[in-house]
C-alpha cells in the first residue's frame, strides 16, 4: 500500500493505493492529482523510507515509494 499526502489547510489530504485491480481507481486518481500538483509547482518527497533511509525528492509517479508528502508550490512569505 502506498500513501500520498498532499499538504493543505486540513493538515494533509491522503490517498492510499496499490497496484491491485481493486485499487485501480484510487491509483488513477492519485496519479492525476500528483501530476496536476507537480505541474502547478509542487514538490514531492519520499519519507519514512524502508531501512531508515533519508527523505528523498521524487519527481515521477512511477518512482513513488511507500509514503510521499507533496508540498505545494512555495513562495516568499
Amino acid at each position, binding site marked *: *500500500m502506498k*500513501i500520498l*499526502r498532499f*499538504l*493543505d*489547510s*486540513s*493538515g*494533509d489530504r491522503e490517498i*492510499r493505493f496499490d497496484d491491485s485491480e481493486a485499487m485501480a481507481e484510487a491509483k488513477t486518481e492519485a496519479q492525476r492529482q500528483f501530476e496536476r500538483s507537480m505541474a502547478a*509547482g509542487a*514538490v514531492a*518527497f519520499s*519519507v*519514512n523510507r524502508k531501512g531508515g533511509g*533519508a*527523505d*528523498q*525528492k521524487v519527481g515521477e509517479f512511477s518512482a513513488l515509494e*511507500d509514503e510521499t*508528502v507533496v*508540498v*505545494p*508550490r*512555495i*513562495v*516568499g*512569505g
Partner: protein
Amino acid sequence: MPDCLARVLQLLGDWSPMGDQTPDEVLGNLRQGSPALPQRIRRCIRWLLYEDYAVISTDELFMEAPGKGPTPDARARQLLLRVLNPVQRDEFSRYGYFTVDAIGWGRFRVLSRTTFNVLNTGTGMAFCAGPDMPVPLADLMLAQKLILENDPERFFRVANHRREDGRYCGAGL
C-alpha cells in the same frame, strides 16, 4: 516502525472484523478513530512510536470520540513528528524548534512561528518562505524541513530574508 509495535498492530489487525490489515493500515485506522481502544493501549502505542511521553498527547495521536476527526493542527503535528528524525523530534519536543542542514547553504533552525521562522544559526539571517496556500504551522515547518534538506535552491530562490536586527534585506538569494 519498531518491530514490537508492528507485532502489536498485527495482533490488533487480526482481531479486527475487517481482517487482513497491515500494521500501517491498523495504525491509520486507529488514528482515524477507534473510541473503544482502551487508554492504556493508546499510551502503549504512543510509547512504542515515540518513547518520550512529552512529544505528543494521546488526544493528539488518536481521536477521542466517534465521528470526530483530528483537527488540522493535530493531523499536521502527527505528520511532522513522524517525519522528523529522532534528533529533530527530541529538539522539537523540548524547545519547539528543530535544526536542519541544507547542503551547501549551512545549518538552519526552523522555529514554531509563521513568518521569518528559518534562522541561519551561523549568520543570524532569518528567511521566510512557505506553501502558497494556508496550512497548519506544523505543515509549514514540515515543508521547510523537506525542501531545505533536499532542494534548498528552491527555498532560497524565493525566500524573503532579513538580518538579525530585523532590517529587511530582500527577496531570493
